[in-house]
Every structure is written in C-alpha cells, then in structure tokens.
C-alpha cells in the first residue's frame, strides 16, 4: 500500500536535531518543459477555471491537439 512515486530516498544524517519526517524527503527525476510550450499552455487554459497537471512529467496535454 506504500505510495508509488518512483522516488528515491534522500540521504539525511541521523541526528537528534532532525525530525523523523525529514528522513522521508523524496526526489524524482523529471524533464523540464520548454518555456515556449509552457507559455502556450498557460494561454490556452487561461480563464478556463483551473490550470493543473501540464507541468507533471506524464502529462499528455502537450501532445494532444
């Protein structure tokens, strides 16, 4: 039931000053969305109520007409 986020654990040193949850910082490798595409999508979705997801790596918004 563990969350599958394709992430790797970040190495945090064990120390009395570091809260437990910070040992669970995760990192995921992602691809940068070209700035021009980003702006195009912002323009396309602007004013439609909500802009979401186009920045996520598995979004197909950039490839659909």
């Amino acid at each position, binding site marked *: *039931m*563990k*969350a*599958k*986020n394709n992430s790797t654990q*970040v190495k945090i040193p*064990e*120390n*009395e*000053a*570091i*809260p*437990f*949850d*910070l*040992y*669970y*910082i*995760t*990192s*995921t*490798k*992602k*691809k*940068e969305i070209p700035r021009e595409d980003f702006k195009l999508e912002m323009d396309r979705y602007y*004013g439609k*109520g*909500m*802009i*979401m*997801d*186009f920045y*996520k*790596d*598995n*979004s*197909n*918004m950039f490839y659909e007409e």
Partner: protein
Amino acid sequence: MPLIFSQEIDFPTNRVFDWLSFYDADYNKYTGLNLKDDFTFDDKKITISLGGIDKKNSIKVKDKNLNHIDLFPVWFRRPNKVSIPFTGDFKYESTYPKNLFSYAIKQRNTIFWDYLGNKLESNNHLGSFKTISLNKPIVLELAQKFGLTIPSTLITNSKDDLNLFFENNNHRIITKSIEEIIIDHKHYLNDEEYLHFYQITNLLESLDNTPSKFAPSLFQEYIDKKYEIRTVFFNNEFYSASVFTQINEDTKIDMRNRKANHFTRYMPYKLDSEIEAGILKLMNHLELNFGVIDFIKSIDNEYYFLEINPVGQYGDVSLYCNYGIHKKIAEYLIKNESKK
C-alpha cells in the same frame, strides 16, 4: 478597491482576478517582493506618524497619503511573512559579524510590512495576515476540545515510545511534518532534466531501518479510509467535497501523490451538522474566516479531523463540485467595499 496579498504565482488568486475583471472591479495585488508596490520600499520615502496631543496618525509613501487604505477590503490569500524591501548591497567593514548585522537589518526592515499587514487586519478582510500557518499539536488539541475526533497521535523523540505506538496501532502508522511540508526544490542535472525534491505523508509498516535518533516528531495511527473530505470554510459557509482517494493506489496515503491525467474523483458533500458546529467553534477560536480543512471518513463511518490550512488550495473543491468559490470571493470583496 480590494487589496490582495498573495504569492507571485497562485492560480486561485488569478481566477479571482478574472472575476473581479468580469465585474469591472479594480484591485491591487501585493507580494511583498515587488519593489514597485506601495507597501514595499527600496528608494521610496516612507513616513509613519503616530500620536501626539492631536492623535493624528498618518502613513505616507513617496509623499502619497495612504490613510485611505483603511477603507479597502483586504484578501490575505497567501501573504508573505516578510517583504524584501532592499536590493542594494554595501561595503561592510566591522568586527561585528556581517551575518548578525544583516539579520538586524532584515528584522528592522520588515517592521513596516508587518505594521501594514496588522493594520489592514482591522479592515474588512478575508484570510489572515498573522496566521498563515498553524501549530499542528495545538490545533489537534483544540479540535478535540470542540468535539471533533482526531486520529491517535504521538509526538516524541523516543524510539521506545515510537515502537510502543507502532505496536499499539497494528504496525501501521504514518509520519508527516509537524509543521509545513518542505519547500519544493528543483536540482538541475542538465538543461532538460532535474531532480524534484518534495515531501508527502508516508505510511510506516515497519520500523526496521528507521532512525534511532530524531527530534520530536509527529506520528499518527493509520486509518483505513472510505474517502477523504476537503472542506473550504469561507464567510461562515462550508463547501465540502468527498475525495475518492482510495480508488487509486497512488493517492491512498496522500492525495497529492497523483499522476497527471489520473484525476481523483470529487463529489459535493454535506458534513454532519455537529462536525460543522465543531469546526465553526474552532475557526472562531483561531480567529480565522477562511481555511481549508481536511477530514477522513473511516471505513467505520467515523469522521477524523486532520488539519486546517489557513492558506490552503481550494480550487479543486470549487471546480469539481461547481461551488464557484472564486466568484464568491470576488463578490465578497466587491460587496465589502460597497459597504464603506
């Protein structure tokens, strides 16, 4: 003219701007970072006069009198805690450490921003300048006091106590931040790829290979959920949505852990009146007129209060449940202006 304190980029803020534009209403946005703002200063002349026999108080920026700001409705959507008023650098030669000196400057220079934020809280306002984050243990305790059920919670730096808590909760507990989650960070590997650092709530099904030494941290029992509930509290009204996070394996523990194009199902929801009454008492106690509140509805049909975010995202609830909260906020700001 509504004054809106928000971040540089915040989509719900922009949707409210859309509605203000629709109604031909003027507005001003302040981020605390834009040096052209009235409320930040770089090379601007700023004068605040207080007291005296005639008790004549005034605020002037660039000789422009800002006293009329008392008249404006304010939306503290996501106010920055500090402004960055100065960009200039200077040569520093002293044996008093520069970092301490810089700290002293920063503290002093944010007083104006703080003064204005606090002053504007006496206007008709939505949200809070002072309270943009809450102390989780305090809120959990208050929620319990006002009749809400909270998950069994442990705050400890003792591995022994954590082990006992783990045993008592069927070897399934969650760890999440006692404060806010970490600030997201992008570490660029090259021009196209980066590592995205972030934090979500984690389920612990084993304490093997976990740290033996740690600072006081928050742990809660894992509750088997039927669904989650996200409630937007605004202007003494409740706008709730049931969020079906248990359908998708990724969102079972933390609803934010959702892939693009895998939408979570939301439905409009009406909380029980006793729960709403408890929340109302809690919000009044915290002097908040806006907040996004998270609950769990367990498979045993029990409501568990999780937390309040005074600057939480509400766009999902508004959009999926057709509540039109952006429009209502714009109308609230316009209505409060016309009252003056």
